[in-house]
């Protein structure tokens, strides 16, 4: 059945192509269902082929060649099917399918309904290209395609200037990361002479010096930080909330932003040789986690909270991956995909029910009107807050456990992670309470209503997954660890302590932190808004800073964008014209001058040519004899 794997990419791609040509004619909701069918079928194909991985028969990575483009340098279309890609594929297609279904309801009535699904399918195909790639060339292809599709999706409502700007921003910031990624690939190619995973990772130990490995690791980190919205390149993600909510759920919870984590895990063999780069990854992750969590606290836009929360959780994954806890990182990636997709879709359901209202201060008391949404989002909130036995608890605890075992530095990061966990519990509770509890604070003329079945059923499924999803890897039964083991063969994986007492204490501490966060959130926000203000004023200027996201955008604007723009202007008119043109012209002039000087040699006279020939003969002969030690 493994030969069918290319279908995983081909099906969504075919869906996109089909909808591109016929979508408008088919109209809604049929085009939505076709897209769903395409990705659903991809999920089924993936699932069928995942069976050997589940039964433990997939010991080594299987390869399916689609097209040998340049086999010599390992650049071909080739699927690598190992535990890591199995997991990623199932998450992408599985969660993706649910999001597609949801989107059918959410995008109801949009004039570009079918176009939306074209993009969604295209995006899914790109993401699957990325995770299924068997070499860096194909990975890069998927990487770029994903970026392109996210641009299309974020600025889907391109008539809104903010949406168009957000798309552009995502594109530009990602480009910065991509540059690092590209340089990393070049270094890899120059050192290994190939781009295929096998050729690189198996020989990493013998080929790379520590210095090179660190360089490659750091460059990969730059690329990953761009895609996975890490400090300092995270700024595009909150803005990207301008896109339709299913897009946020798909891109910013389940798929694209996890690409960075995926790449770091994939390149585990390189990071293993470069502990310094690993620490850099962990540090970036911890800083991001805390930084974004604080910002999330101050947000009042329902989606902005989730956006910063996503950034923060991705920081978590980086933290784990940087310390060698790849399984923990991938585990959290998976559970996060469940509950964050659920949260995004839930918020979408709320926005849908509230007639496109996104300000949480104008919500409240919605649980009576949207019971399913409220319940499922409640589950997700508990899950992300790390309340046992929900999914988030297990994965978050594993990350914290890994950090705790990671020496002194790891324990510092553990403290950061713990604080972040508490903050996460707080702001998520704050969100849920503000939206669903208390008195209604709606604008006039808003009549909240529960969303149609097509939207709530995915919510329920995701809620179930958020509850049980964590059970695949508990300290009692390391299912995921065993499952992923073949993909990390030869990698020294970091584990949480295996002693039950340590686990129990750590778990107790983190649960306590979560409960504390929930308690504060509930106590403060389940009251009239006046009390919130009082609470918030207690933080003084800090709260304002959080509310304004530390004004990072303004800072970037002032320090990078504006000078950059000015520089670009200056470059175009002052530098470009005289200097660049001068350089080009100068080079051209040099070539022409040298050329016309050399041309004189070509007199057209055979005897002159003869002199040149004989001189060349003598030079070559003497050089050769001297080089060969002949005299």
């Amino acid at each position: 059945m493994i030969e069918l794997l290319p279908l995983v990419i081909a099906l969504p791609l075919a869906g996109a192509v089909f909808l591109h040509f016929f979508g408008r004619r088919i109209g809604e909701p049929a085009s939505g269902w076709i897209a769903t069918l395409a990705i659903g079928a991809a999920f089924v194909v993936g699932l069928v082929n995942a069976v050997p991985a589940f039964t433990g028969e997939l010991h080594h990575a299987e390869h399916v060649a689609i097209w040998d483009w340049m086999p010599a340098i390992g650049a071909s279309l080739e699927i690598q099917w190992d535990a890591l890609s199995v997991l990623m594929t199932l998450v992408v297609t599985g969660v993706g399918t649910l999001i597609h279904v949801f989107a059918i309801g959410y995008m109801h009535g949009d004039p570009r309904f079918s176009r939306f699904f074209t993009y969604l399918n295209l995006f899914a195909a790109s993401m699957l290209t990325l995770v299924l790639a068997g070499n860096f060339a194909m990975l890069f292809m998927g990487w770029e395609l994903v970026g392109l599709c996210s641009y299309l999706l974020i600025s889907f409502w391109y008539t809104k200037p903010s949406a168009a700007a957000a798309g552009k921003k995502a594109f530009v910031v990602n480009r910065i990361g991509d540059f690092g990624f590209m340089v990393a690939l070049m270094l890899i190619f120059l050192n290994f002479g190939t781009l295929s995973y096998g050729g690189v990772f198996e020989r990493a130990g013998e080929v790379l010096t520590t210095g090179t490995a660190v360089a490659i690791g750091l460059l990969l980190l730059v690329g990953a930080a761009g895609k996975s919205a890490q400090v300092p390149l995270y700024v595009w993600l909150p803005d990207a909330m301008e896109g339709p909510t299913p897009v946020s759920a798909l891109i910013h919870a389940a798929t694209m932003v996890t690409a960075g984590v995926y790449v770091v895990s994939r390149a585990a063999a390189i990071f293993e040789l470069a502990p310094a780069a690993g620490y850099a990854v962990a540090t970036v992750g911890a800083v991001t986690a805390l930084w974004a969590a604080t910002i999330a606290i101050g947000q009042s836009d329902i989606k902005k909270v989730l956006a910063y929360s996503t950034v923060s959780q991705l920081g978590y994954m980086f933290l784990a991956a940087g310390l060698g806890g790849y399984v923990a990182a991938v585990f959290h990636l998976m559970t996060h995909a469940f509950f964050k997709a659920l949260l995004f879709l839930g918020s979408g359901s709320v926005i849908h029910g509230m007639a496109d209202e996104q300000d949480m201060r104008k919500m409240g008391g919605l649980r009576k009107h949207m019971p399913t949404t409220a319940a499922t989002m409640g589950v997700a909130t508990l899950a992300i807050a790390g309340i046992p036995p929900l999914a988030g608890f297990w994965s978050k605890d594993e990350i914290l456990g890994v950090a705790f075992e990671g020496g002194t530095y790891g324990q510092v990061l553990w403290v950061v992670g713990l604080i972040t966990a508490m903050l996460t519990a707080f702001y998520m509770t704050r969100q849920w309470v503000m939206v669903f509890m208390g008195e209604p604070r709606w604008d006039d003329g808003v009549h909240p209503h529960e969303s149609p079945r097509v939207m709530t059923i995915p919510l329920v499924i995701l809620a179930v997954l958020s509850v049980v999803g964590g059970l695949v890897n508990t300290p009692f039964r390391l299912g995921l660890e065993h499952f992923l083991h073949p993909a990390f063969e030869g990698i020294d994986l970091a584990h949480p302590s295996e002693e039950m007492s340590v686990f129990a204490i750590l778990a107790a501490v983190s649960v306590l932190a979560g409960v504390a966060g929930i308690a504060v959130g509930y106590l403060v926000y389940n009251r009239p808004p006046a009390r919130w203000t009082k609470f918030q004023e207690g933080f003084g200027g800090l709260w304002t800073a959080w509310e304004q996201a530390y004004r990072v955008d303004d800072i970037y604007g002032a320090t990078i964008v504006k000078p950059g723009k000015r520089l670009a202007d200056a470059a175009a008119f002052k530098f470009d014209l005289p200097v660049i043109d001068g350089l080009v012209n100068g080079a051209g002039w040099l070539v022409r001058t040298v050329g016309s000087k050399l041309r004189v040699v070509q007199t057209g006279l055979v005897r002159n040519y003869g002199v040149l020939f004989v001189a060349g003969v003598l030079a070559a002969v003497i050089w050769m004899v001297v080089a060969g030690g002949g005299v």
Partner: protein
Amino acid sequence: MTVTPGWYMTLAAVLFAIGLLGILVRRNALIMFMCVELMLNAVNLTFVAAGRALGLIDGQVSVFFVLVVAAAEVVIGLAIIVAVFRQRSSASVDELSGLSG
């Protein structure tokens, strides 16, 4: 003082060099051909002398092939001279500089 094949080969080298430099100093195409013949003869002498030193007949066999090539080159070369001469009434290569740069 015994003559070794090396002596003959040195003589051949000198003949070859004379031929090679002759190409550069003469402007009459016919004489330039003669210089090429001179070079090929130097090669033949080298082959014969080397074959003697090595005790191999291959050196002498090679001479026949160089000879055939020399003959074929002469035929074509003289034909080209005749063709050029019909156009320009001159066999001086210094006058052939229409193509340059």
